[in-house]
Structures are given as C-alpha cells and as structure tokens.
C-alpha cells in the first residue's frame, strides 16, 4: 500500500504496539503467567489512553499550532459520559436485587426513584437530574461520548477562532474553559454528584461474574485497538494536502488565507476532531481508573498533556505517544513511592515531592536544548538530519515550529 510506504512510521508503530500488547497479555494475571499485577495492567491500559489524547494534542498543537490547554477537559467529559451509564446501570442492578426481595414486585417508578436516591443520596438529593435522561441506555451514552466533546469544541472553537484569537490568548481561553467546566462540576446541583464524582466505574454492569483480572485485560486490548485506530487515522489526516495546509497554518496563517483557504474552518475542524479523540480516550480510561471527579479537569492536567507532547517532540505523531508513555509511566513510578529516596546528608530528596521539580526541569531543558524531544532519538537511528537554514523560525506565527524542531 502506498500510504504505508510513504509513512513507514505507521507500520513500525503498529508492530511495536502489537508486540507490546502480546507481551502484556502473556504476563497478565487473567490471560498469562501473572508476572504483572491486575493494577499494573490497568496502569498500562490507562497509559495507552493517555497516549491517545497526546496524539490528539499533537495534531492540534504540533501540526496546527494551536496550543490548547483544555484538551483534558474533553477527555474527562468523555469519561463522565460513559461513567453515567456505568453508574446508572450498575445501581439499577443493585436496586433491582434489593427490591426483588420485597413481597410486591417494584414498579418502574419505584425502581427509578430507588436508583436516583442511591446515586444522589451523597449530595442530599433523591431526584434524577435531567442530564441523566439517557443514562439507562448504553448506545445513547456512547453517542454522547462523541457528541458532547464535539459540540463543546465546536461552540468554543467557533467563538474563539472567528474572532481570530490566537497564540497565548487562545491558550488562556482554553484554560478558562477547563476551569469553568471543573467549577461547574464541583457544584452539587450540577447533577453529576459534585466533588464526589462518579465512582465504582470498574464494575461493568452485566459482567459481575467476570473477575477484574479479565476485565483489565479486555480494557487493555480495547485501549490498544483504539490507540492503533487513532494513530492510523491521524497519520492519514496529516499525510495529504490537509496535512500540508494545517502545517502551513501553524507556520504562517495569514499566507494560507491569501491562498484562499478558510483558516478558521480548518482550525475548527481540527479542534473538534481532536476533542472527539480525547473524549473516546477518556471513555476508555475512566472504567480502568474506577473513579472520575471534577479534579480530573483541573487546568494542570491539560498543561501536563502539553508537557508530554513537548518532551516527546511535537509535530510527529510517534513523538507524542513516546512522550505520553514515557512521562506518565515515570510519573507513576516516582509518585508511587517506589523510587528510592536520595539522602544528601543535609536533606533527603523524597521523589514524591521532587518529581514535579524534575519534570519541570526536564521540560525546560528539552525546550531549550532538544526541541525535537524524544522523537529526535528516532532520527539518530534513521540518520535523518535537519537541513542548514541559518537560524530563523519557520514562520511569523506564535505557534510556528522553530528551525531546530523541523526535519529534513
């Protein structure tokens, strides 16, 4: 196929992902020897979902030059949408089992009220909010996983791009959007259980007989498949003229306008597409995490996302995946308390506290000295070198690539 021939990284990526998936399958407690624990399988599955949202971030930032600091909001919204069904359907089972013991079979209204008071008792309410209207239906909530992030991104993007907000101002606006959404969700009367969030998401309704070691590997497979699909889709999107146009927008959007391309339309398209990918990633992530609450939408989460992509190397898809996997696994190792403390005599470095400092330092150093990031290591293997270009940035726009990031 010419597509694979022109984009050898796609084949490499799929092969590496398949080998990794097979290795984890053989080591998992459910399907293999059990060398690794169920919780580690979940961590790896979650990491693949994070890699997926990093891919989306790379398309929107690395390729189109829009530094969105709000994509984790779409990720969390996807999680909330699937979480609503998980929680509703699971509570339905429990309430039904409890009421079945009573002499008179429950009416649908009693069942409904029972579910509502069970879910919302924690925020002092026993009424089902209107936004839970479709929570009983899996197909409807799956559709909302895609539709809600898309609608949010389209509405926000239309307002922002149409007014030609760009650069750092747009980044601040996206942060404001994330924060506003988080603050709204923190309220008890938002209808999504306030700061309690949605919990018990690891229990899949109708699959009570399946142990977690099996569920974990199923979700791992689903995450790997979704990541593979997202990679192929985005590699295809950036391979043709569309890819040329969005990279051109990143480097000099005014010039693209004078070529006749509706720049705002492209930005909106990319913003919404990546929001959908982020939403799907979130819908796969949170059943593995088991709980989602408004803290997941904290602005810092989206900043981490940008840091992963920067460390991985923006403007190339595998770089984003490398950055997300490397940094998030390292982060869970350092913050998990397993990293040995470093005694310095006068003070001791506890990595749980110092990891963030290390990450911040790594971000600064990568930005200054190795803008190609981890993806640049691949160039060492393939022997690709940057062309001589005498130092100027590649375009006048704030999002444009710097010379040292560009490839031959």
């Amino acid at each position, binding site marked *: 196929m010419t597509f694979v021939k022109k984009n050898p990284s796609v084949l490499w990526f799929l092969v590496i992902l398949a080998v990794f998936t097979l290795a984890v399958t053989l080591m998992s407690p459910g399907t293999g020897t059990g060398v690794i624990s169920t919780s580690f399988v979940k961590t790896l599955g979650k990491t693949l979902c994070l890699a997926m949202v990093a891919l989306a971030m790379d398309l929107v930032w690395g390729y189109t030059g829009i530094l969105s600091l709000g994509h984790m909001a779409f990720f969390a919204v996807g999680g909330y949408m699937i979480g609503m069904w998980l929680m509703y359907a699971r509570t339905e089972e429990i309430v039904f089992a409890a009421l079945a013991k009573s002499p008179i079979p429950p009416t649908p209204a009693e069942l409904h009220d029972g579910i509502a008071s069970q879910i919302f008792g924690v925020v002092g309410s026993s009424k089902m909010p209107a936004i839970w209207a479709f929570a009983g239906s899996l197909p409807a909530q799956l559709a909302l996983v895609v539709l809600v992030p898309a609608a949010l991104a389209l509405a926000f993007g239309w307002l922002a791009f149409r007014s030609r907000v760009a650069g750092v101002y747009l980044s601040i606006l996206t942060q404001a959007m994330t924060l506003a959404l988080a603050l709204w969700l923190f309220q008890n009367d938002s209808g999504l259980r306030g700061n309690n969030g949605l919990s018990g998401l690891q229990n899949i309704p109708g699959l009570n007989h399946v142990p977690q070691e099996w569920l974990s590997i199923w979700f791992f497979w689903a995450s790997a498949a979704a990541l593979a699909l997202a990679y192929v889709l985005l590699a295809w999107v950036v391979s043709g003229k569309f890819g*040329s146009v969005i*990279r051109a927008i990143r480097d000099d959007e005014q010039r693209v306008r004078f070529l006749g391309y509706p720049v705002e339309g492209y930005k909106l398209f990319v913003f919404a597409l990546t929001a959908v990918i982020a939403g799907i990633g979130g819908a796969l992530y949170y059943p593995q995490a088991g709980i989602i609450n408004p803290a997941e939408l904290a602005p810092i989460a989206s900043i981490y996302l940008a840091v992963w992509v920067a460390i991985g190397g923006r403007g190339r898809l595998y770089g984003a995946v490398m950055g997300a996997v490397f940094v998030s696994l390292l982060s869970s190792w350092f913050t998990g308390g397993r990293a040995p403390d470093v005694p310095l005599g006068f003070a001791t470095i506890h990595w749980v506290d110092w990891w963030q400092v290390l990450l911040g330092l790594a971000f600064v150093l990568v930005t200054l000295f190795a803008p190609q990031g981890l993806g640049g290591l691949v160039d060492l293997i393939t022997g690709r070198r940057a062309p001589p270009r005498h130092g100027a940035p590649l375009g006048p726009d704030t999002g444009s690539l710097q010379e040292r990031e560009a490839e031959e």
Partner: protein
Amino acid sequence: MSSLLEVSGVCVTFDGFRAINNLSFQIGPAELRAVIGPNGAGKTTFMDIVTGKTRPDAGRVLFGEKSISLLRRSEAEIARIGVGRKFQRPTVFEDQSVADNLMTALKAARGPWKVLFWRPGPADHARVLELADQVGLAAHLARKSGELSHGQKQWLEIGMLLAQEPRLLLVDEPAAGMTLAEREQTTAMLVDLAKTRAVVVVEHDMEFVRRLNCKVTVLHEGSVLAEGSIDHVTADPQVVEVYLGR
C-alpha cells in the same frame, strides 16, 4: 475598456490618521500597472483593502465582469475569487518541500472536507512540475523550501501565485533583495504575466519601474497624485516635489 478592478472613493482611518483618503483606482483585465509613492503614501494599505485584510470606512471595491463587491469578504474568499498577493518578504512554507508548497497552492477546492479526501492525480503532478519548471525549480522539487536561497524562495512564491491562477496579481516590491540578473528575469516575467491577467506592482525602485515600461500611479497621502507614463509622472512638478525631489 471595462475594468477588472474598480476602487472608488475609498477612505481608511487608523486612530484618527487618514491612511487612505478618497482613493480611486482602476485596472483592466490584462494590464501591468506600477504603484509608487513615498513611505506612508498608503501603498500597502491599498493592497490590504483589495485583499480584504483592512476594511475601509467608506467607498467601493468592485471586481470582475459581474462587479462583485470585495468589501465584507474574508481574505480567503477574495483569494478564491481571483486576487493573488505576493508579499515583500518571501513567504513560503519552509518546513515543506517545494512540491508540497506548489501542490497546496494549486487551484482546487479549498474547504476542509474536500481537502481531506483530495489526493493528487497525474494531471496535478504534471502541473506542479510544469510550474516548477517555469520558475526554474524543477530540480529542487523534493527539497525543503527552507533550504532554498532568498531568490529561489521569491521564485517559489511566484510559482505558488501562478498555481492559484489569479486574475489580478498584487506584487509588493518584487525586486527587493534581488541581484541584477534576477531583477531582469523578474521584469520579463511580470511583463509576460500581464498579457493574460492584471498585475499591480508596488515598488520603491524607480529604475525598476522604468524597466517595466507601463502606466504608473503615484500615491501621496492616501490618494492618487498623478497617473500616466513614467516620463509623464516624473515630469509632474508635484510628483517631483513630494517624491523624487527628496
């Protein structure tokens, strides 16, 4: 002769400063025109108005046989209607190959969905090769345009403009930073282009304008001071006073 572009009574004010004051300008469908004037005369603002970058406070800008108004249209729409613009500084997409630059500029559907599913056919590759040949870059198609020399970038940008197939071409100081040989080549090219379309050249360099051998419009303080052949305008005492005499 009916005109391709008709600008009449246009005024633009920036923070109280009248950049363009009751400007009127016309150009035919196949004509070469030079626009000259001292700094601050409104040359760039004039181009900004025609290409949709700046909205005038008053006046009309009409284009084509159907006299489509260019006011209230976005830059992209105006470009699709058939107005191409060449900037003073060469602006090519440095991260992409010469072939990709030309392919992006090639006249085709511009909407996101259509572009997403668009794949170049043999005719498109042939056209890119032909354009590259025309601007002397056929041997460099696979190179990143960032590696090209300054002059080659200028040529690539001209190639991209040709790929757009505009009916009106606005060219901002094409000779800036060019060697003498490149200037001569550029002059010949502009004269040749003006046989099939309208070309407006904004230029500082009198020698270059003389070589274009075309009608000249002199701008001063946002309106037309004089219009005619180069010898006619250089003989005008007012022009000498505000521009040439300095």
